[in-house]
């Protein structure tokens, strides 16, 4: 019984993230992240930046409220908001939106054309 508890509180899972900019060769980085039930894919990415690699780029704004709508990416091949997509215990693969020009890592050009300098 206590073994189960210990395992859940120290559970980790794996995040596979597409890295690089538009001209770069395709590359995926793997990150082992702590897993807690209910956490979002965004939570895991924020953890990676704070603990493993701060150079990982992704867009987000409101973290909780799903109000800013800036955090879209592909999670396991499906378009999703990173902040509402739940991380599965078995982990996830995260990639940039395929139909948008790639800027860096998970960041694509989602800014409307009339909002650019």
């Amino acid at each position: 019984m206590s073994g189960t508890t210990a395992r859940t509180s120290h559970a980790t899972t794996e995040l596979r993230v597409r890295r690089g900019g538009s001209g770069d060769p395709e590359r995926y980085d793997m990150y082992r992240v702590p897993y807690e039930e209910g956490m979002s894919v965004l939570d895991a990415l924020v953890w990676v930046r704070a603990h493993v690699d701060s150079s990982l780029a992704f867009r987000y704004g409101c973290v909780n409220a799903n109000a800013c709508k800036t955090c879209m990416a592909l999670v396991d091949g499906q378009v999703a908001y990173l902040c509402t997509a739940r991380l599965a215990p078995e982990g996830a693969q995260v990639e940039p939106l395929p139909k948008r020009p790639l800027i860096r890592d998970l960041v694509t050009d989602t800014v409307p054309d009339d909002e650019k300098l």
Partner: protein
Amino acid sequence: MYAAIAAARQDASVLLLDKSLVGRGGATIMAQMTVAAAIGHEERDHWADHLDDTLAAGRELCDEKLARLLCENGPARIFEMDRWGAHWARGAGGRIRQVQAPGHGRARCCYVDFLNTGPGVAGTLRRQVSTMSGVRRVSNVTVTDVVVHDGRAVGAVGLDVVTGDIVTLAAEAVILAAGGLTKIFRRNSASTNMGGEAYALALRAGADLIDMEFVQFFPIAHLAPRLVGMDPIMWDPFRYKLGGRLLNGDFEEFMHRYGGQDSGKYTTVRDQASYAILKEVESGRGSPHGGVYLDFRHVPDATLRDAFGPVIDRLATNGIDLTQTPVEVAPTAHYHMGGIRVDQRMETRVAGLYAAGEAVGGANGANRLSGNAITEALVFGECAGRAAGAAAAGTSSGWNDAAAEDAVARLRCAAETFSDDGVPANVLQRRLQDLMWEDVGPFRTGDQLRRALDGIGEIRETPATVHAGGGYNLDLQDRLELHAMLATAEAVTRAALGRAESRGAHQRLDFPESDSGLVRNQVIEMKGEEVAARW
């Protein structure tokens, strides 16, 4: 956004910059609550009554002229937003529905169903802005300096975060509307882009800040289980409508242990709830995630559904069933009463430099009424835009390359110095947030505040890692943001140290009483390179 619209109505040509996406960041979009304005649809009301309530909450420190502006112009803004298609909730006969939020003497607070006020307001403004030919929107530009020449604001320097290019922008007038500072605290309820940049920019440009010690902490923000798709401060209306019970980690009621000081006033009640919760946690009686439980298990399912229908479903998708499980809540940094000191035209002491929205200080004094934050975003935005637009019409920018030189050099240095050692700026931000939470949080002492100033200095001296790479470099964005956060954190801490009393949202454990000699506003300014306080 309101400022941009109002300036364009004065025939100014407006550049609306946002470091994230225009109209997608900030606090408004997160707000699920209400907008206070004495439109008198629900019951007889007058702006003067709204003003009385606002001044009472502000504990004698409100700038009365600004507070009056807010209350007097609130109704016009509500009706204008209505014409622009804001879906205010309606009652019988098409009247706009209003509820009575704590601290208001009347049912005065308009809203958009269900808990959709902020997104509704932001969406309406976004649409309206997009119809104005005089407004050009630019997303993903971080402004790092306002350029001042001959005592006038003449433009700005910033970073195009997508390309990594440095941009310079000449302007006849500049309006700072970058919101509050909640991100400098570990627990906060706002978007990630509320790092206090407006205050830092204003300070460096030579403007005064006022009332910086007054940060509003909201006692029962959501803590656990992980809740996505919702504003963490959503439990307030639940509690008022349905009477949720606060329980400590051992599932015991505890508020009565701290009940002796309850004077029955709303502000006191809020502060006291925070105090009681933090004390329970400190004594080891907190909930697993470091807060307390908010329990609705005594409320029947049908009553819950009646009051909050669709919200109950959204909770269900988060695996939360209020009839079965209590949620964990804890205090969080929510809003900032202080800010940039302006006159009634929203102009700072630097000519041509204006402020709008939460960035403005003074209107709410030592504590803000629920519902006044969006009102001030609308009202102050309109005032600032109108004044700045009119002023800009008769002039041309006094832009001067030499005046921008320092700012460009500073940004170039930040943007082009890469290093793989040091500490990543997001980790330093976290250190700052922890320190501000521990030592400059809801309850403060002189010793803690002095320790915080040392800590801020240490973080400032720590080199930040910025990995190379031009486009969308989050390390670099974090470093620029950290810079602003540190300036703002220091302003708050110095002001908190200077006010040796407890008043409204500023609570000093070493000075628990209000001091009638301190019914005065404290000002923060730059003295050379130093952040300094004066009365």
